[in-house]
């Protein structure tokens, strides 16, 4: 890894480890000076960018973001008594969930437990057999797949969603690119969505859901195809959205993030849990 690549990687890793931009700038500049003075290759002087960033974060006590910063706000999403069966197979049975502004709810459960169905009901795409969903504010929805158009560029996707949310083309493009940058992605203006890698297409999917800053965000396993860095970026974004007062519902089967969410809704049927 050459020096520039290493320093660039360090910038990203510092952000992922929760080091603020000011301090990160100092750390990177200092490391660059050191490398120039010593002439050492960066890997032998500082080690891999990820582990150096972790050491830096540890030494300033910035490691994990505090689980709760401010008390949650008013109720944004109120799900009452949702039941749904497909033919004779009962998928959801009397499910309740209340998410307030500034809260993250994780929806977990085995495959086929109805996680996606639950989210689609919340988004109003599927009707339940019983129950109601009350949304207080606007909804954003990130489907598991099929949310993007193969023959449009990312910028055109931003324009498409933006127009629905009454944003001008230029405004939508700017907002989309700003969200993309937070996921460490700079959309290439000539590239069609069909030519993007799975992980990058998923970033596009996520940015589209966030465009227009909806009050409630419903995310259906939005990190498929993400590498480790992108996955961490994703959770940092989710925490940031929470801190700006968004109510986030995220379907996940990865349990190691559960300590960083506010509510866990387990859809595993009772008979399997017992």
């Amino acid at each position, binding site marked *: 890894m050459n020096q520039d690549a290493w320093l660039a990687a360090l910038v990203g890793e510092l952000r992922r480890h929760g080091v603020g931009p000011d301090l990160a700038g100092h750390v990177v500049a200092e490391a660059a000076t050191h490398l120039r003075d010593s002439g050492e290759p960066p890997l032998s002087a500082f080690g891999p960018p990820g582990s150096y960033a972790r050491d830096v974060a540890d030494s300033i006590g910035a490691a994990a973001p505090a689980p709760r910063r401010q008390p949650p706000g008013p109720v944004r999403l109120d799900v009452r008594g949702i039941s749904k069966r497909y033919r004779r197979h009962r998928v959801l049975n009397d499910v309740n969930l209340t998410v307030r502004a500034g809260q993250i709810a994780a929806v977990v459960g085995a495959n086929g437990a109805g996680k996606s169905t639950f989210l689609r009901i919340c*988004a109003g795409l599927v009707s339940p057999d019983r129950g*109601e969903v009350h949304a207080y504010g606007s909804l954003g929805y990130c489907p598991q797949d099929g949310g993007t158009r193969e023959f449009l560029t990312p910028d055109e996707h931003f324009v498409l969603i933006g127009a629905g949310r009454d944003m001008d083309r230029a405004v939508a493009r700017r907002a989309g690119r700003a969200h993309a940058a937070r996921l460490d992605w700079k959309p290439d203006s000539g590239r069609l969505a069909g030519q993007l890698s799975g992980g990058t297409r998923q970033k596009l999917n996520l940015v589209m859901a966030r465009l227009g800053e909806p009050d409630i965000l419903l995310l259906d396993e939005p990190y498929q195809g993400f590498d480790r860095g992108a996955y961490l970026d994703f959770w940092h974004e989710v925490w940031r959205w929470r801190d700006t007062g968004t109510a986030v519902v995220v379907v996940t089967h990865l349990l190691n993030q559960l300590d960083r969410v506010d509510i866990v809704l387990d859809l595993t049927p009772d008979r399997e849990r017992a």
Partner: protein
Amino acid sequence: MKKIIVTADLALREIARRRTVLVVLALLPLAFYLSRRGDHLGQSIRFVCLGLGWALSTAALFAGSAARPIEPRLRLSGYGSRHLVLGRLLALWTVGLVLSLPYYLLILVDRHDVRYGAIAVVMLLTVAVAAPFGLALSAVLPRELEGTLVLLIVVGLQMMTDPATTASRALPFWFSREIGTYAIDHTDSGYLDRGLLHGVAFAVLLTALVTVAASVRLRSRPHLRFNPAP
């Protein structure tokens, strides 16, 4: 209105980027035209119009099926179903007009002694009907293969059935044969009137059908109640 224009604009870009599809679409009517160019002068004009209708309906069928997965998300992002339908129709109509123009010019150069105004009317109506017809098929038959087969049957019937029978009037491109006869064989204006009525009626009916189907599919569900953010 802005939402319709953005939908139309982006749908057009998507079609424009599928070069191979465009080339095949553009050549299909030509194949129809040339197939009857030798024997019967008027027949090749009738065929080119049917070819245009077939090409555009197929394009509309695929565009409609391809758009299905993203439509719910667009609906959630603030689009009404009418924005989505009208935007897509606008794009397809534009493609149809662009596709037809060279053939109109070809007929103008290649033919004499036909009513050119009536030929233009046939082409306009063909475009007007074909786009919603393809979209309607995609609404009823979500899988492209099934839709394509039905299209094949309809166009095949259209070519083979005797336009004089009552049953043939149920076919969407019947007007094309009727006005075509008026234009080529210089028959009385009854042919033109019947054709016009049929074409306009089908265009309006199919457009309405597509709009209604979309509004049902993308209806807001009663279990989800939106309240203003407190």
